[in-house]
């Protein structure tokens, strides 16, 4: 299984570039894991891209999983109520106190 890492932000400002790259990676591999640990900012456009990738994977019968969701990603997935729909294993962050 191929692992790709997304670093920095996943927002309207760079989704176009990410889309090309991630879509190509998904098409080139039967199974792909996206490591989201390094995503420090995500907006709805970023989320939309993740949804698209998930859909594309299920349409083409590929295995796509997101892993190591960073805090901003978790928050947004939670807000959009997609955590369970994405069906990825989540590591819930410890309370930092």
């Amino acid at each position, binding site marked *: 299984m191929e692992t790709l890492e997304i670093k920095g932000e996943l927002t309207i400002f760079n989704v176009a570039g990410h889309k090309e790259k991630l879509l190509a990676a998904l098409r080139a591999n039967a199974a792909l894991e996206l490591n989201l640990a390094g995503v420090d900012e995500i907006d*709805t456009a970023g989320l939309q891209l993740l949804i698209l990738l998930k859909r594309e994977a299920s349409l083409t019968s590929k295995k796509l999983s997101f892993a190591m969701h960073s805090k901003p990603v978790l928050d947004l997935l939670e*807000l959009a*109520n997609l955590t369970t729909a994405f069906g990825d294993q989540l590591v*819930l962050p410890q309370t930092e106190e």
Partner: protein
Amino acid sequence: MSFDEEMKNALKTFTLESLELLQDMEEHLLNLEDDEAPAERINAIFRAAHTIKGSSGVFGLTHIVAFTHVVESVLDELRGGRIGVGSELVAALLPCCDHITLLVRNVVDGRTEEDAALTAEGKQLLDELNAFTQAAPADKAVTEFKCPREQLQKLENDSVKDGNWHLSLRFGADSFRDGMDPLSFVSYLRTLGDIVQLVTICQALPPADEMDPETCYLGFEIELKSSAGKAEIEGVFEFVRESSIIRILPYGSGIGEFIELIDELPENLSYLGEILVAAGAITRHELDDALHHQQNKMQTAREQGNAEAEAAVPALGEILVKYQAVSEPVLNAALEKQKQVKEKKNQEAQSIRVDAERLDKLIDLIGELVIAGAGVNLRSRLFADEGLKEMTGETMRLIEEVRDGALQLRMVPIGTTFSRFQRVVRDVSKELGKGIDLIVTGGDTEVDKSVVEKIGDPLMHLVRNAMDHGIETADVRLACGKPARGSLTLKAYHSSGSIVIEVSDDGGGLNRERILAKAVERGLIQAHDVLSDHEVYALIFEPGFSTAQTVSNLSGRGVGMDVVKRNVTALRGNIEVDSRLGAGTTMRIHLPLTLAIIDGFLVGVGKATFVIPLDRVIECVALPEDAGEREYMDLRGEVLPLVWLSQVFDVESHQQRRHNVVVVEHAGNKAGFVVDRLQGEFQTVIKPLGKLFTYIKGVAGSTILGDGKVALIVDVPTLFEFCERANRHAEHALPAPSHAS
């Protein structure tokens, strides 16, 4: 917190952030032309404008949005490479940047309404700006597409039937591009009430290849439990209302209204129906009725839609069961949500704004702690108690760390002050018709915030002065064999416990003869006085002194340089001038790193105790027996001028046997202070002297020792001046009167 207060707070954050963004924007704009690869900068500028526009929209500041929108479109053109970077464009964009700043500042002052005069001004700016662009072709066609039903993104729910409102949101295709982040609206809804159910609708997503990631295809179905009225909820979406479908229905609306809703929304109707049932907006019975109703209607109109709907209805029950089965999700999302909101806030708070006053209070207290600690330490030495000594030693170490940490809090890079000058240089050079480049080095040198704040104005004087008087016009420069464009350098670096800021130009330099002539004319010196270059140059800091032949708008009225000197001295700093005729001038400002606390070196002269700033001290040596009362000594082959503190401060020295010399450095020169006793290091809080003593030379302040006595802090730079003058007078054997500089 009431809604109003919350909005007020949010607005405050908005203005603060916007002003920061505008500052960045200005900086990037100024550097745009010189950048080899400006893409990154253009992006940053665009982002700034975009963010400001988006946030102003949220607050309903439509006049800011309207103005920024035009700026942003131009920037977008720039970003797309359809128009090129040029100084005219930058010149047109900078005033726009200023204008937005003005608008935001008005908001800070509480004027959120549009101001007709400003709008007219803005209009003019925009007209200039619009000259750079032609209308960009719009390609906004969004492909209609149906998603496979597996993609139904849904779920989690605890028996939620009491949402007061049902919200159907379909955001406009351009939402992202307009700087709207749909989920931030949803997020904001949470401040109005509880989101008990939310379904993300992504049916409109076209196939991967056709999907434009910058277009918004998403929608949300939300059950909101809130006491807010419809108008209030609608207000949240005020800014996207035009481009998006926003439907807000109270819970318990008749089925007819929901059918209407279903009709309006672009998705497959049975799919929507499922969501509504799941969300608790309508019952299954109502949905079945509705679908039946729809079927009848469609029979005639759409054969295909009918078939699909028919296929969907029987599946409905199954789906609902499935939903219920999932309703105890592995993840207790609801509880998590609360926790995560809190954590998100923590994360956002990685840097916090602190009231400067509180910080000052803290530093003040730590200052007192340092004094008290030093007292304890001194006391403990009186007892032969090893344990006590050890403990006070440890306490002192901790206090030192706390002190350093607290002072660090106040340190800010001087670069922010420097970057202001980019704009000044640009504007002034334009005004003067001279081509001047600003070179900044050492911008990340850290300085105490209070120093940074106070050094801005003196620097401004120096920079303007250098541009006005220092740098010649292009013709003169070319005639002298210099490049036509002048350059001005701002430089900061640390040097032996102080920060040095240099303002240098490559202009004509100071004219020694002219300054002398002027000084004599003003009666500052006598015609036969012999002065070193440094002293001559120092004359320009005398009040009312200007050698400029023409008085310009900017400088030359002789007001300024003395103010500069006064400001710098007030910061316990000093300023010196280096100049070579025809080659340029360098103004060098030495400032202490911090104003509050220093590490001192205690010395005793007679009964008095003095503190010499430790960072000036290089070493201590014994005064050779045969030195007598001489004013210099041999320090390993070097001539070291001596300053007898007992003479300078007129203290009776009791020491008969031998004296000690503290070797001190300042601005590259060394001197030896002759004292009676060396008493070691001491942390000192500087207490300013009273007004009465303001004009006393050689003393920078006072401090309180552990035993309650007062010690004076020696002002090294002025003693150096004293020493230099004394030496020269000795050399020339001239009984010249001394002039305070």
